[in-house]
Structure formats: structure tokens, C-alpha cells
């Protein structure tokens, strides 16, 4: 059991990794990655029952899927910091011959990844399939999947949402990174998502809300969601986050969705994030 302070320290180091990774290759997606640093840290360091001795089938383990694959930096950092692969490998992010591809993939055999994502809207279906396989196998562990909110504009998400509720896939927790921003601007301006709680409820899901940039609230929210499994409904967490959370100049707009900081901006960002576990 990690304390909230320890988890916050880890999340700070993860945020340092994120900005350093995207700065090093002048590409990647820092905004959403920073926003989800607390979620991933809580999941891997506190919530999930998992083994760093990676097995594709994840038998008797909780599984994590990332549907909005462009926030790969946060996942890579947390996987490395958890021990799935050597931390210095973060240096290879987006470079030639790397296992840390721009978007997550099984193709290069990176431990911790079970399916490719990047083309949006596909992760929920895969997570549902993995959750059904667990039920078929008599495995009572939980499947987690993270989605961007803009990603919910993809039709396949709603096919999967309908399917999961119909089939009572109640070992599934899908979290929406509800930062209300996407590449072209605010989701309300690009293509309004409407009342997400009402939509998921209408589709037959058990919906809860969570502050995804407060570690205590995130841990408690994920624990509460896990306690709701097995009740005949898939679970949706609307996780309120701030794109760019933890780096003041990256917050408050959509413009850091997919832009890397320059040298000065990196120094500024690192000045705001304590180095708690040693930079890679």
C-alpha cells in the first residue's frame, strides 16, 4: 500500500519523464499525458493486481488498455517506473528501432502492451473482448480502459458501449479523460459531447465521476469503481482532468495536445515538477 504522498511523488517523476520524452524528439503528446499522470500512477502503483513479469494473456491479473494511444508517454513512463522494462529505455521514445513507438503497439514486443492503439475508438471493443474472455475462463479480475473524451466522437465507442451493457460485461471499468479539449479546440466547439453521464446511463452503464488530478480522489474513485464490479453493469468513470496538468503554461487550453516544449519551456516545466525517483 503506497501512501498518497508516495503516489504523488511518483506522479511528479512521471510528469518529468513525459515532458523530457517529448522534448527529446520534438514530437508526441504532452497535454493529455500530463492530465492522466495521476490516473496511471494510481492504477499501476495502487489499484491494479498485476505482475511486471509480463504475460500477454494476463491470466488472474487486472488488465489495462489505452484507447487514446497518443498519450503513450504517460503509459510508457508508468510501465517503466513499475518495472515492466528498463527505465533508460524511455530515451528511445519515437526513435528508430525503438519498442516505444509513437503510439502503443505489441508489434515490437514492449512488455505491458496487449494491443495496438492510436487510430481512435477501438480500445473499448478490445477491452470488452478481453473482459469476456476473463469471464469465459473463470478469471474474476478486472479490465480497465482509458479513453479520451474527444475520442467518444467515434461511432465504434457507442457500438461497444451498447454491446458491453447488453452482455452485462461487469468486469470492465472504462474511464473517460474528461478534459473537454481536443486537437482543434474545445470539445464543445468541435463536436459537442452533450451530457455524457446521461448518455452512458442511457446505454446501460453505471456511471461515476472522479477528480483525476487529485491523487486521493483518484485512488478512492478507482477503488470505488472496482468495488462496483460484478453487479451486472459495465462501469464508466467520467474523470475530470486538466490537459497539461502539473505544468502551468500547458494548462488552460488545447494547444499542448500534440506539441513538444522547446529547451526553455522544458526547463520551466521541470522547475515545476520535483525529481522524486531520479531522471532516466
Amino acid at each position, binding site marked *: 500500500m503506497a501512501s498518497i504522498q508516495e503516489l504523488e511523488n511518483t506522479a511528479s517523476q512521471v510528469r518529468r519523464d513525459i515532458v523530457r520524452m517529448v522534448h527529446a524528439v520534438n514530437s508526441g503528446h504532452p497535454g493529455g499525458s500530463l492530465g492522466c499522470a495521476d490516473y496511471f500512477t494510481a492504477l499501476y502503483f495502487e489499484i491494479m493486481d498485476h505482475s511486471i513479469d509480463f504475460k*500477454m*494473456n*494476463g*491470466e488472474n491479473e487486472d*488488465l489495462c488498455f489505452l484507447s487514446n494511444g497518443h498519450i503513450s508517454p504517460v503509459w510508457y513512463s508508468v510501465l517503466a517506473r513499475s518495472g515492466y522494462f528498463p527505465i533508460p529505455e524511455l530515451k528511445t521514445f519515437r526513435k528508430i528501432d525503438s519498442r516505444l513507438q509513437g503510439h502503443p*503497439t*505489441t*508489434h515490437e514486443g514492449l512488455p505491458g502492451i*496487449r*494491443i*495496438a*492503439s*492510436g*487510430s481512435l*475508438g*477501438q*480500445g*473499448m*471493443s*478490445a*477491452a*470488452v*473482448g*478481453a*473482459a*469476456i*474472455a*476473463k469471464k*469465459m*475462463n473463470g*478469471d474474476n479480475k478486472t479490465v480497465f480502459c482509458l479513453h479520451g473524451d474527444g475520442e467518444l466522437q467515434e*461511432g*465504434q465507442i457507442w*457500438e*461497444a458501449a*451498447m*454491446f458491453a451493457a*447488453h*452482455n452485462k460485461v461487469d468486469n470492465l471499468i472504462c474511464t473517460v479523460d474528461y478534459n473537454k479539449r481536443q486537437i482543434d479546440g474545445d470539445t464543445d466547439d468541435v463536436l459537442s459531447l452533450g451530457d455524457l453521464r446521461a448518455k452512458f446511463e442511457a446505454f446501460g452503464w453505471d456511471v461515476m465521476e472522479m477528480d483525476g488530478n487529485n491523487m486521493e480522489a483518484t485512488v478512492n474513485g478507482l477503488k470505488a469503481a472496482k468495488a462496483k464490479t460484478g453487479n451486472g453493469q459495465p462501469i464508466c468513470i467520467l474523470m475530470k482532468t486538466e490537459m497539461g496538468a502539473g505544468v502551468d503554461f500547458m494548462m488552460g487550453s488545447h494547444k499542448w495536445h500534440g506539441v513538444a516544449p522547446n529547451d526553455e519551456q522544458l526547463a520551466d516545466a521541470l522547475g515545476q515538477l520535483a525529481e522524486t525517483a531520479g531522471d532516466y
Partner: protein
Amino acid sequence: MAKYEYTEMKDTRSGFGDGLLEAGKRNENVVALCADLTGSLKMNAFKDAFPDRFIQAGIAEANMMGVAAGLTIGGKIPFTGTFANFSTGRVYDQIRQSIAYSNKNVKIAASHAGLTLGEDGATHQILEDIGLMKMLPGMVVINPCDYEQTKAATIAIAEYEGPVYLRFGRPKWPVFTPKNQKFEIGKAVTFQEGNDVTIIATGHCVWESLKAAEDLEAEGLSVEVINIHTIKPLDNEAILKSAAKTGRVVTAEEHQMNGGLGDAVAQLLSRNNPTPMEFVAVNDSFGESGKPEELFEKYGLGKSSIIEAVKRVMKR
């Protein structure tokens, strides 16, 4: 007396349905998903035998492909079932990312492929699916020629680890290959040997090719007929050997000329042993409503078109 006789008329989709049931009996990890076409895909026998291993996906093919990919993570061997059009073009990106790139052990079972779907018309008659699927790295592409071969192929792909596209059809068609045959993925079947010309055919065009060969032999030509049921990986050795012997090749398929079996054979031959070729295929056109045999005739896929193609290649 005709050289080739058929035992009965039977649809290749029934070969899939019977093969799926057998694969399900042999391996409890075989599961099936269907997008509201259980009867059309002949999946009812599997559904009745293994209700807990059958998943009704509804009319939501994109999700079905993703769910299938996810099922493989837990060690399942999922077969997805819908029409070829909705098994490929409609869900190309899902197959590309979640199945092919992710190297998931999904078997995409695609029925009602090609013109012989018949009266439903061009919206449903996909003629581009072989091309779409064979372009995906690592995807195995199979188009069997009759009921028995489809059944054997279905059983064989359940035992193969990796993504597979299995294409078959709707109409009753002659059954002329043996019961309980051994199906070897990627291995050509030579139906008859000859020295003047090689006909390389897949799917429903194999029977037409055998009938064409009969007529051509009556005119004094020595015709080799090779059945390529696996378009990818292609049996390079068998094709190169036959082309070297006859020096002339005709391909026949119920597919667009662009992107199909003919393209694959032409690429192989042009790189290794340039050989005069003719192509029996749909020539950059959509289909239309009609009876299968009428459509085969109108779009130039039947016996007479194959005979004409052989005569053209003999003059080159």
C-alpha cells in the same frame, strides 16, 4: 464422359458452418461471433452446440472485430462471421490496427463474397476484399473452391496461430474435392497436369476452369489446372514450376483484376520468370443484381471466358 464430375451442389458457406462446428468440437477455445447473420453464415449448428461460446454482435461489425481481437488476449480463437463486404471494407481500420498490426489470432470468416451473391446487387457484392486483405502484413488470405475445401480450410485455420481471412460464397456450387481432405495453408493443389498452358484459379472459378480445360483438351491443348486456395502466402514454388513448364498462364478469380490473385501471380512471375499472362477477373467494374450464373457470364468469369483467355495467351 466428362473428366470432372461433381457429387452434389452445395454452398461453400455450409462448408464453413460444418467446419466451424468441427473446429469447435476439437478445441474448446474456438469461439464464434456473428453480426446478425447467423443463418446466412450457417453458424446455427455451432451456436446450438456451444451456446456459451457464441457471441451475437448485432449489426455492429467494427465492434465485433475489436471484441474478437480482445478475446484472443484471453487465449480464445475467435471466428467473426458476416458478409465479405462487412468483413473487410467496412472494418478495414479495425482489422488493420487491432488484428493485423497487433498480430491477433482472429479468423475473419467472410461469406457472400463476389458476384455470386446474386440478386442483392453491387452494394453487397464485394470484389475488392482479396486485395484489401492481402495488402495487410501477416494476414493469411484463403478462398476455397467448394464445400469440402471450405470445410477443411475452416478446420485448418483454427489450428493455425495468426490472423486469417477466409472468403467463401452464397450459391450452391459443384462439390468436386474429396471429403475429409487435408488442407495445407499456402499449398497449391494441382488438379491436372499439362504442358501447353497453366490455368491458376481460386474460389468458384476453379470449377469453371476445370470445365474449360476439358473443352480445351478436346481441341488438342494440354492444360495444367492449379487451384490456389491460399492467395497469401502464395505457393511461389508451384506457380514458378508450372509457368516454367508451360510458358503461358491464365488466372481466374471472382474478384477485381486489380489487387486479386492475378496481380499476385503477375508480380511473382515478372520478378522471377516473366511469362505471358491473361486475367479472368472483373475489369474495374461494380456488379449488379442477377442470378449467379448470369453474372458469371456477363462479367466474364465463366467457362467460356476462361477458354477465350487461354486462346489469347496461346497466340502470344
